[in-house]
């Protein structure tokens, strides 16, 4: 579904980072470097971005 707004574990706001992360990784940057650059220090926040599957498009026709 949509990216969570905050990290489940620590509560840091990570929703706004996802679109930027996606764009930069698709441009060919190293995911690790992008996560570091975006200030995700803890692995709880990193997994929120890395492990996310964007599935809203599957649900839109059912709305």
């Amino acid at each position, binding site marked *: 579904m949509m990216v969570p*707004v905050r990290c489940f574990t620590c*509560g840091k706001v990570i*929703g706004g980072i996802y679109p930027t992360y996606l764009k930069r990784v698709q441009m060919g940057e190293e995911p690790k470097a992008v996560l570091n650059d975006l200030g995700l220090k803890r692995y709880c926040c990193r997994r929120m971005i890395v492990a996310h599957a964007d599935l*809203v498009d599957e649900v*839109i026709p059912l709305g």
Partner: protein
Amino acid sequence: MDLKIIDMSDRHGKFVISGIRPDMANAIRRCLMTEVPKMAIENVEFHLGSIRDEEGNEYESVSPLFNEIISHRLGLVPVPTDPTLYTYKDECVCDGEGCPSCTIIYSLNKRGPGDVYSGDLEPLGGPELRVKDELIPIVRLGPGQAILAYVYAELGTAKRHVKWQVTSGTNYRYYPTVNIDLDKCEGDRACIEACPRDVLKDLDGKVAVDDLEACILCRSCEEACDVGAITVSGDDTKFLFEFETDGSLTAHQALDKALEILEQEYEEFRESVSAMETA
């Protein structure tokens, strides 16, 4: 008590505080996490039925997510808060009706297809009320879908819900002391390589401390040293304190408020104790 600020920027605070005890450091930490009030979205009024745009096109007020989930996602968006301005809704002069000193109102009006972002929240009031993180995705609307809602933010603390939590990653640790016995040290670099935080460095064939404050007291270097030339210990009167804020308050404002609340709570406690003595 001595304070050394390492960083106190918009969303990150890091400092060294010495001459206190672990329980005092913990009181500051807990106060920062659960007692600092901020504004967060609590009520969302959705327009139901069809929505028309300026050109007369008709949209349905439906979206791929349930309204409850959209409200929850809106609630987690950090709302900029002036810590001196707002009061709790139930303690306000308006008796919980909602007025400018206890409520911030936003309007959300977006038509599909496309993403609704936190930046689409239009404040009814000054531009200083605009959400700072403008790129948080809320929902994705399909063609013919639209959202029209009035969104109300109010003051609260994280004791009620995490959406009112100002800080994240709030932590402190004992200030590290790394002792290297240069007479025993054989300079085989085993400890330098064992350290996960790159605290140690090679200095003319001997080991030296490079970045002491990065040390997390893991003692990997002690284990790696066969001759026992290196010892690591923590100082329980000196603390490395670090926290992040979600942007609704600056790190300085959050810390200020936490200390103010801590002081006020002890003052109330002292008053009730002295009232007990006279009774």
